[in-house]
């Protein structure tokens, strides 16, 4: 039970953090992951609800979140808007926009009651009920499985494909790409769209699998935690995957503590954020030791 909860919780973190990683390594800090997840969650509910197919919901989430990514890309890459501010703006668009869309469709501003419920397809392993680990894995939504294969997929992308190579190059040395006859902005576009795609999936998991239905602001900071997990994972695929999974574990632990102890809810809920702060500090210390000499300020 605990493992399956962890898987369920970790999947959105992993996917969104991987999305942040792709964008970040291509040179775009995706602070809009929160908004992409939120709009993705709503789109998933609408898509699945009105079509009757969970996969359509997933697709809708991906498309809508990628659309937000495209907005960010257009404004940052072409109109040269400040990345962080444009990202915040996208988050605001998502906060307000989801409610407006919901309102114009259902007349409600709070949740998606009234829209038919949909659900993501689940993948079960036949006969796995009694095998310890597989049992928790079996019956998880397709997005959880996607989250699990996201690590090998990212590693493959990283080391074996052109796009991966270009993404790694784009964030570090734009000029190298240009000199090789490539267009950094295209690479960033691709990375951002992939980032949107992954965040959309993460949103769909929240609204079509972990819970069924959309509630305003239901992402509740998970996109920012995913961003933090990416930093915590030192901006590498494996590190990001581990850190994001760790937040899934942390969530589960916090839940256990809430149910079994009288620990203050606010303190428990702020643990992930404090953890990221600590990790940032320690990571900074490590980097500083490496580049000691030329200041400590990047």
């Amino acid at each position, binding site marked *: 039970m605990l493992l399956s909860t962890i898987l369920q919780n970790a999947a959105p973190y992993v996917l969104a953090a991987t999305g942040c990683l792709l964008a970040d390594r291509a040179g775009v800090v995706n602070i809009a992951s929160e908004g992409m997840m939120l709009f993705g969650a709503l789109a998933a509910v609408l898509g699945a609800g009105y079509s009757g197919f969970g996969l359509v919901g997933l697709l809708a989430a991906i498309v809508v979140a990628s659309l937000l990514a495209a907005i960010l890309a257009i404004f940052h890459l072409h109109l040269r808007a400040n990345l962080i501010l444009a990202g915040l703006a996208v988050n605001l668009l998502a906060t307000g926009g989801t409610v407006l869309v919901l309102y114009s469709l259902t007349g409600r501003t709070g949740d998606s009651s009234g829209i038919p419920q949909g659900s993501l397809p689940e993948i079960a392993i036949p006969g796995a009920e009694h095998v310890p680990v597989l049992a928790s894995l079996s019956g998880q939504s397709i997005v959880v499985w996607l989250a699990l294969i996201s690590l090998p997929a990212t590693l493959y992308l990283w080391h074996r494909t052109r*796009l991966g190579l270009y993404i790694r190059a784009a964030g570090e040395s734009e000029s190298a790409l240009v000199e090789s006859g490539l267009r950094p902005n295209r690479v960033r576009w691709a990375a951002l769209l992939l980032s949107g795609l992954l965040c959309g999936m993460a949103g769909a998991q929240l609204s079509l699998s972990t819970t069924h239905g959309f509630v305003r602001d239901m992402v509740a900071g998970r996109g920012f935690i995913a961003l933090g997990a990416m930093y915590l994972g030192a901006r590498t695929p494996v590190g990001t995957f581990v850190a994001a999974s760790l937040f899934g574990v942390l969530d589960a632990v916090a839940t256990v503590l809430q149910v079994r102890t009288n620990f203050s809810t606010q303190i428990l809920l702020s643990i992930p954020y404090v953890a990221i702060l600590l990790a940032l500090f320690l990571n900074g210390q490590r980097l500083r030791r490496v580049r000691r000499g030329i200041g400590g300020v990047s």
Partner: protein
Amino acid sequence: MVATTRSSIGSGFSVLMTNHDLATVEPHGAGEPPTGPPYRLEAVKLSKAYGQLTANHEVSLRVTSQSVHAVLGENGAGKSTLMKMLYGVEQPDSGQIRLDGVPVKLPNPKAAVAHGIGMVFQHFGLVPSLTAAENIALGVEPGRPWRIDKREILDSIGALSDAMGLHVDLKRPVARMSTAQQQRVEILKALYRGARVLILDEPTALLTPQERRALFDAVRRLTEAGTTVLFITHKLSEVAELADDVTILRRGHVVGHGRHADFNTAQLVELMVGGRPVTARRAPAPLPTAPKAASFTGLSVTGSQGREAVHGVSLDLREGEVCGLVGVDGNGQLEFLEGIAGIRPVTAGRIEIGGVALRRWTHRRARAAGLGYVPEDRLSAGVVPAFPIVDNMFADRITYGGYRRHGRLDKSRMRSEAVRLIEDFDIRCTGPLQPAERLSGGNIQKVVLAREISRGPKVLLVAEPTRGLDIGAAARIHEALADAAREGTAILVLSSDVDEVLAISSRICVFHEGRLVADLVNGDEVTAEIIGALMLGSAEDGPADSPAASPADVAPPAAGGGA
């Protein structure tokens, strides 16, 4: 890593000794110069203007196949613009580019690469964390889009580098390579893309003399293997050493071209600077007997990687002396300078300026004690490009609480003093409020020097005073330094240009592997060859060969220095 550097330097060293012969070397493929077209690469009356400024005016260039062609000119003469047009970065306003006699259009670098033109920029376009192989193959990876063939990459690049004698560790990230190795990666990158015409943009700017030798050897091998090389430079010595043909640019016009052998040095200088006076080698300043300005005892300094880069170096400076600091890149001389400046942590030793020893050495304290500092990288550390000249000039004094009246900054006084300094240092600008980014490199360096000299430092540390500057600007800078020395400032100047050090120093200190291996009084007997040998660590040979070498204040450490 050390082994690689050494071997390449080793091969360069033997050539260094035959330096004098090279000046008279016949162009490659001796005999008749090619009489008619087709030339390998040809520029016909290329013109390019940026707004009001004409960068190139009907510039024509003919490059013979398999030759080394130098494009010579001062900064701002239009060399880079020409090369950018040849590489498709910039589009000519008019004119034509021909390859083997056939007109070609080069709308972008990709097209240039497709036509077999490759370019290596002065500052490398490499991705630090990618391996050499990944960098070389970037953009032209074999294999399908979703699967790069890594084996194929390694094999083909390996074969190429063997054939050209350009050896690098292909699996090592370029971030962990020396400048020269990175340059090799860049050249391989161009060749890997099928470049048969290779454009090198000031390829030696960041290299030590030894690395320069190795590069020149490689260029020779390339031309033998069929490549045509076009390189930009403003150093006459390089033209003498390497070029078969030369085209001289001045203010966007071609003012001379032909086989290098047809010109003598004086003619080249004349063409290049257009009759302006040029500083030749300055008579070495006499070693002053003035009192000590500073003394550094047993300094150990931490380098970039957290390792100790300078091991217990001691040095005294006298008022009014100009002490040159040389060494192969990465041998601790820069760390030594930055350690004294307080930019890097000094882990052991004692620093005294004006007889006062300071504890907890930081740059801020060093400045307060009377230290001036001209950093290596003038655009990022010397000035803030967006700030007006006046801010850049007095930044140091403002931060120490100067130029204040009634608690607020006295801007009018700063401005009027800036006007005076602009005159004194002959800074070409529209006024003290012009942002530094709109100044030329030489004038930016003058702003930095104006700041550092006008505060009247006891000791002035200067790193790479004229790197990338043209002859005229370099001369001004050298004059300013000499003036400061005459006023009694002790100057410690680091330069990777040994000729420059020889020209301006009264004394030369050579670093090798983090230690001071020689401390020579500059004189006619001290030559680039001797310094070069010392930089390679042959502490026994250098001073022994040179009768002028006097025992230094600091004895060179026991043979070889030990590691």
